[in-house]
């Protein structure tokens, strides 16, 4: 009887210990400094405003743009990277809803029916296409404040279905950013990386390695500033990112869970960094 009581006590002790030790990780924002500290700040947002895969048209719907504009105005980012717009016409509608507070440009369309766009508050912003993996991303160069250094934001959208293409695309983006080493470059967008092996249901492929390679290559030159914010898309996926230069410190990283409307499958990610 004594042995059985000992086993029962050990079992109970283990359950108490499991309850005592929290399985959740201690979350800290990487490189965070005192939020009251000085220095220039930059607030960025990235949002794939397209629809889930099962819809007839998975691109952004013009009827949703009013809500997109409201979410932007409410959070007041300095610059926004948008993905899956149908083209320049939709961007014009959105800029109209934003009441002239932002300027923007859509990427050149190439072999695709949807484009990325970048919006900035700064009136002196310059825009340019970024060739990447047979497609185009789009970049804006601007000063968030008159006394702040010039920064570049690239809006990117990697292939949703082929990991090898995502890798090639990401490498092109990073190489483009490295060529602009004199400037402070941020890269934001939907990269569709699948890095959690537990959710990997396509066995016997190199997909994980392709995504791991692409993500690791990005982290050679950037920090994943939104890592602590959590999932950004349905089915508990974190596939939208803001990559910041190593010197930039993350002050806030948040996923706006209530912002999506219609059948959007992504949530906007807002990151505030100190420059």
């Amino acid at each position, binding site marked *: 009887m004594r*042995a059985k009581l000992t*086993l029962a006590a050990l079992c109970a002790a283990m*359950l108490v210990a499991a309850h005592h*030790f929290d399985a959740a990780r201690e979350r800290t924002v990487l490189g965070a400094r005192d939020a009251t500290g000085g220095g220039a700040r930059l607030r960025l947002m990235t949002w794939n405003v397209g629809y889930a895969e099962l819809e007839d048209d998975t691109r952004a719907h013009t009827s949703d743009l009013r809500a997109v504009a409201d979410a932007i105005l409410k959070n007041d980012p300095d610059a926004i990277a948008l993905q899956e717009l149908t083209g320049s016409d939709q961007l014009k509608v959105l800029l109209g809803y934003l009441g002239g507070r932002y300027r923007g440009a859509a990427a050149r369309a190439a072999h695709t029916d949807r484009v990325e766009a970048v919006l900035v508050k700064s009136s002196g912003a310059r825009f340019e296409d970024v060739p990447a993996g047979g497609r185009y991303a789009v970049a804006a160069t601007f000063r968030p404040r008159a006394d702040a250094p010039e920064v570049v934001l690239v809006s990117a959208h990697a292939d949703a279905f082929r990991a090898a293409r995502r890798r090639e695309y990401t490498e092109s983006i990073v190489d483009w950013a490295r060529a602009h080493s004199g400037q402070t470059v941020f890269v934001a967008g939907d990269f569709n990386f699948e890095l959690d*092996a537990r959710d990997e249901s396509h066995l016997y492929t190199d997909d994980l*390695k392709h995504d*791991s*390679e692409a993500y690791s*290559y990005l982290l050679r030159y950037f920090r994943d500033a939104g890592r602590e914010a959590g999932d950004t898309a349905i089915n508990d996926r974190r596939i939208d990112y803001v990559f910041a230069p190593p010197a930039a410190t993350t002050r806030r990283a948040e996923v706006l869970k209530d912002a999506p409307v219609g059948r959007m499958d992504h949530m906007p990610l807002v990151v505030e960094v100190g420059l």
Partner: protein
Amino acid sequence: MFTLLRIEFTKLARSRGFQLSFAALAGFVALMLWGFYTYAERKTGGQAAEQFRYTYESKSYFNGLTFALYSLVFSFSLLVPVFVAATAGSQIAGEARAGTLRMIAVRPVARVSLLLSKFAVVALHVLLMMAFFVGLNLLVGLLFVGWGDLQLYPGPLNLVDEPGRIARDDALWRFACATLTGTWAMLVVAAIATLLSVVCESAAVATVATIAIYLALYVVGRVEFFEQLRPYFFTTDMDFWRDVFKPQIPWQSLYHYASLCGAYTFGALLAAAALFDRKDIKS
């Protein structure tokens, strides 16, 4: 108790299963070495496609520590549990099948003590297997692949969220820790097999049932449809053993899952003891 342990260990050490487990693990290491060596040669050679040149396909990545880690991770989930289940599953049911259970049960020794001594010997077997396997992998890695730092990347092995590196000496300590955490995690399988060994009359049935339960939960836990059920599987909790290979060991999480594994182990042992104490031995 010491006499019981000595007798049980002698029986185990003389069994074919004990020797076979070490031979099979050594064979697995040889197979891994062949695969790893040819893969590394192909991927880092002049004809390489250079798809993963920043991470996996560099000569510094393919070193003995990486080899040992891959070998350990692959075998822990699907190879080691088979031997643990076979050893533990045969402890009571094997005696019943051989017709010796009644004889050992009539000795002036409490049945629970007998069961616990058998489990202690199984635990020792698991520890020896893990230590042997880790040591052999490191030795083979050192001799045939060469050493360097342990480089980790997000994705494969699912260990890190961002690229990380563990210095060689630190990594060796991590392998020593993995021997202990791996043993602790594997005791869950051993306890369940011991419980089934009490319930079943055949060692083969107890072993197969244990492996079936383990594999079913392991596979189902990997299917996305059952994502909501995953936290309730002991196979999910057992995965804590490899947290020691993360550059920053998440101690709170490690203690949590280690405690859950302990609860499974002692719970199954308690059930086994209660059943064995009342078991009507007919063989």
